[in-house]
């Protein structure tokens, strides 16, 4: 993979401010006040602060940061589960913020899917129906839903569990269902919000391997959120590091490990060095 791929998702100067007085807060943050100052003056919380980045087609792009750094907020901008307070988001060159409800729905059905930290599976549907959900929602035929769902269930290694319900599965199996659901929708982009964070270390490593294995043939654009540098280095083509809603550094795993941009990134890297 080249280091400068064609950009699939482009984020330009995005701000996200939570609270009643977002306009005022935006003004303050543009005047380079700190997150704490904005909070004390307007009661608004800054989620994402003047963030720009571009994600290439077919790469695994990892967004990393501690909890509260705005990474989960940011990833929800890509399918507009959250709308930015200001800024632009382009997917395939189209400004998705201009989409109306119908266009947005169509976009979510065909172009982008998501895997969630606590799985977000439908508890009243079995594995097969859960995996087929994205297809069913966009109105594919029953037969196609079934065929594709079965195929992906087999790919993620859950053959034989089609008729089980989510509560009958272990955490790792549930996330395989979540992954299969996203893959079955066959979208160009897959967002993974701390998808493996709730799993124990062994299962986690297994899932990481599986994801890398799948990516070899699929070449999806995957945006992967994590708070774990090991995971980021292991699966990421490029890594972006976030702190307080700001982008601190973007680069390949090597760049991050060998030339950390500042003390914050360095601390991540040091911790890892100690652990190794």
């Amino acid at each position, binding site marked *: 993979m080249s280091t400068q791929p064609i950009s699939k998702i482009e984020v330009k100067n995005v701000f996200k401010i939570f609270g009643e007085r977002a306009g005022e807060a935006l003004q303050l943050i543009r005047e380079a006040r700190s997150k704490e100052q904005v909070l004390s003056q307007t009661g608004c919380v800054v989620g994402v602060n003047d963030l720009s980045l571009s994600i290439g087609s077919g790469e695994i792009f990892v967004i990393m940061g501690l909890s509260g750094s705005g990474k989960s907020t940011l990833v929800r901008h890509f399918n507009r*589960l959250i709308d930015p307070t200001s800024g632009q988001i382009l997917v395939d060159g189209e400004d998705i913020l201009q989409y109306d409800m119908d266009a947005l729905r169509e976009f979510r059905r065909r172009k982008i899917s998501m895997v969630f930290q606590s799985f*977000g599976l439908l508890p009243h549907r079995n594995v097969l129906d859960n995996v087929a959900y994205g297809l069913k929602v*966009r109105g594919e035929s029953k037969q196609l839903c079934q065929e594709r769902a079965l195929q992906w269930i087999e790919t993620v290694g859950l053959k034989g569990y089609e008729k089980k319900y989510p509560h009958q599965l272990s955490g790792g199996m549930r996330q395989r269902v979540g992954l299969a659901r996203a893959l079955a929708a066959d979208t160009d982009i897959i967002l993974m919000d701390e998808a493996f964070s709730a799993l124990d270390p062994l299962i986690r490593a297994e899932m990481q391997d599986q994801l890398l294995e799948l990516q070899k043939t699929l070449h999806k654009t995957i945006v992967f959120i994590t708070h774990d540098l090991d995971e980021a280095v292991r699966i990421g083509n490029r890594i972006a590091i976030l702190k307080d809603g700001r982008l601190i550094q973007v680069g390949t795993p090597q760049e991050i490990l060998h030339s950390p941009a500042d003390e914050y990134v360095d601390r991540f890297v040091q911790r890892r060095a100690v652990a190794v």
Partner: protein
Amino acid sequence: MFPDNLTFSIADWVNGWVDALVTNYGDVFRHISDTLLWAIVNLEGLLRATPWWLMLGVVAVIAWHATRRILPTLVITGLLFLVGAVGLWDKLMQTLALMLVATLISVLVGIPLGILSARSNRLRAVLMPLLDIMQTMPSFVYLIPVLMLFGLGKVPAIFATVIYAAPPLIRLTDLGIRQVDGEVMEAINAFGANRWQQLFGVQLPLALPSIMAGINQTTMMALSMVVIASMIGARGLGEDVLVGIQTLNVGRGLEAGLAIVILAVVIDRITQAYGRPRHEVSK
């Protein structure tokens, strides 16, 4: 003493308003009343024309379908047989018809209102105090205007019952939908589900235990209104309780009272069994 110059009364104003309503829209209310009456009379006729053994059979099948256990099915059917055995079968059917219609109207009004209230915090803020009023206002207060508009008999009884019995269903529908896991909603949103798919595919099925608890409460409260309903001319088990009071016939009152309790138990067990989720959500 409260000073006279600070007192005021809304009684005249309300009276004038109700009078105007009766004179101007009497026909409309009459029409509604006739339609409703037609429905109740037909349902009642059907229930009473059904042979008792067939009726018991139908109840047994429903009870089996709901509970999937033999003992509760037998107890439920046996209790109803007992009501027939003390000679109250006909009145039981009359009460059942009244209650079914009242519950049906409560469901038709209550579930949509509950869904809307789960969607909008503003509507909820308006609706909740209104429901409090509906539940706490003594029913005789709104029975007066209802009687003026619809006349004596079954129809005002149904209205009074619906006003009293619908609130828990609205509340529990609202609650059930609001309690659907946020991440599940986020997930189906992320896959592009439209409002219809969200509501019927996910929100209502997941809120079902709560909604069934609401229907259960509604039927229970509807039953607690049957005596009051009989005071304004609705026939049924309440009538016997009323006669029991008026003639100091404790035994007759108790028989009818127990029959109401049995009907309540039967309906309660069946609706509760349907409310139990078939697939437990474990965290």
